[in-house]
């Protein structure tokens, strides 16, 4: 990989790792929240709905600052986590994964919720009469049927995580090799004299990664579609 500079390679690997882990922690939670929003009816549901969508409308800096207050080493939850488990999110790539996952969360929930609402509940009823319990129905009927929605949601969330800037830099700062993701590295180059060429290179890399993600999702979606019983 001679055509990439060490700084670029570092930024790409770090960004991918952060985005991947952002999806790893947020996807199961997003499926759960989407299920509750699509299937359950309870007082305060619109409050939960609003809370889930908050990162979409708040300035990312606000989200990052709230994370700093809450999960920072001196934060309410962060201090306890550090004291009891020795886990720290502040100024580490793990914190970046939390921040970018949180920013992407509403998009992921939205995509999964839409596909959940499109599932024919009568198929789930049929599965119950065939001896499958609620959990069995979820894993053998519901989950396979919403797989395209989960895929779309995670690709969208992954892309959003890759491009996350504001919350990340506010929460975990700009540490080379630890939290300096691709957008932050790009921002860095634009702030130093003579960094334009390097910045342009990163822009091109960002575009290529975005296209690769889109192509991968398209291929996966087609495979899923054919597994679901041929062309739609």
């Amino acid at each position, binding site marked *: 990989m001679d055509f990439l500079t060490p700084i670029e390679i570092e930024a790409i690997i770090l960004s991918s790792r952060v985005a991947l882990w952002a999806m790893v922690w947020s996807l199961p939670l997003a499926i759960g929240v989407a299920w509750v929003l699509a299937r359950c009816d309870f007082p305060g549901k619109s409050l939960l709905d609003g809370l889930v969508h908050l990162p979409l409308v708040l300035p990312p800096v606000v989200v990052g600052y709230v994370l700093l207050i809450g999960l920072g080493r001196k934060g309410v939850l962060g201090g306890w986590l550090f004291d009891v488990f020795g886990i720290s999110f502040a100024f580490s790539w793990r914190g970046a994964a939390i921040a970018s996952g949180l920013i992407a969360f509403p998009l992921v929930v939205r995509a999964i919720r839409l596909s959940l609402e499109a599932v*024919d509940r*009568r*198929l789930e*009823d*049929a*599965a*119950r*009469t*065939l*001896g*499958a*319990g609620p959990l*069995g129905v979820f894993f*053998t*009927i519901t989950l*396979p*049927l919403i797989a395209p929605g989960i895929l779309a949601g995670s690709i969208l969330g992954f892309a959003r995580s890759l491009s996350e800037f504001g919350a990340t830099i506010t929460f975990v700062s700009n540490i080379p090799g630890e939290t300096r993701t691709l957008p932050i590295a790009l921002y860095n180059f634009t702030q130093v004299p003579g960094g334009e060429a390097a910045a342009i290179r990163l822009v091109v890399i960002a575009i290529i990664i975005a296209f690769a993600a889109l192509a991968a999702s398209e291929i996966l979606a087609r495979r899923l579609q054919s*597994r*679901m*019983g*041929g062309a739609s």
Partner: protein
Amino acid sequence: MISVDIIHRLGSFTLATKFETGTRGITAIFGRSGAGKTSIVNVLAGLLQPRSGRIEIGGHVLLDTGNRINVPPEKRRLGYVFQESRLFPHYSVRRNLTYGMLRTPNAERRVDFDDVVGVLGIEALLDRKPRSLSGGERQRVALGRALLPSPNLLLMDEPLASLDASRKQEILPFIERLRDHFHIPMVYVSHDIDEIIRLADTLILIDEGRVAAMGSVEDLTSRLDLRPLTGRYEAGSVIAASVAGHDAEFGLTELAFAGGTFRLPRIDNPVGEKVRVRIRARDVSLALTRPESVSELNVFKGRIMELDHTQSAPQIDIRIDIGVPLWVRITRRAVYELDLREGSEVYTLVKSTSIDRQTLSTQKSAATITEEIY
């Protein structure tokens, strides 16, 4: 024994259904659209929670709201064939078929996979996806899927309603084969009286969420007061008979019934087999004296049991006792001219060709076999 006593409210509609029936053969639930038929079956299956009630099937209490018993659908061991096949689109036909079977403990599997696939004729479809199947094929797969977990009772909610007439004729024999081959009791919901006469033993008439009448198919279809529910247009009599013999010379079959012997063009059922004969009221004519030199082979002497003079319609339905009740539809003018009244002795002429072969159903005694199941 199926014992149901449920009360449920759906908006302004109240379902208050109570009935008890044996688990022998096919019990049909009949009623107009919106009468609450599907709700009853959904309550049986556990997919709909009634406000209160009790359900017991074959000695198992499935629901008893008084004692806080409510067995979840997956533990009720009832098969359910839906109006729309509801096959799982992401699984092959084979995996659809085995979905419930594999969830049934080995010791409780009485229905053999290859047997079902053979009876339903779906060997060639096993590796295909539901989307590529025709409507009739889907419904056959759905029948097999519901049957393979060896249910104690098979519920069918208008399994033929989504099919066109020729597809219906394709599926009906399969349902008859399931009835005769696997001996699993069935509850069959329909708004098509022809299907019910062909398939069912016991009939439950539902009207606005309540049981309007219950009894044998023969009895209920010959009751005048139930006509508004059973449908007036194709009024007729349903008569139980058994094959008495075959007349090889003239190609006829003789059917013995409580009032004598019917002759009709030869059918292939073996001697002794029970069949059900349907005679449309408009295919019977009347005479006051024993007719001679007529072409009808089936002439029976009888007495008028029921004749509604108050009717102002041009045609009147008359019930005549020829050993069994027989419905006759003639014009009001003929009633007037022949001076017919209740108690009059008449001769009925039934055209042998009016006995519809399609409605002959083979009724083997399922009683002995269902006893083994429970």
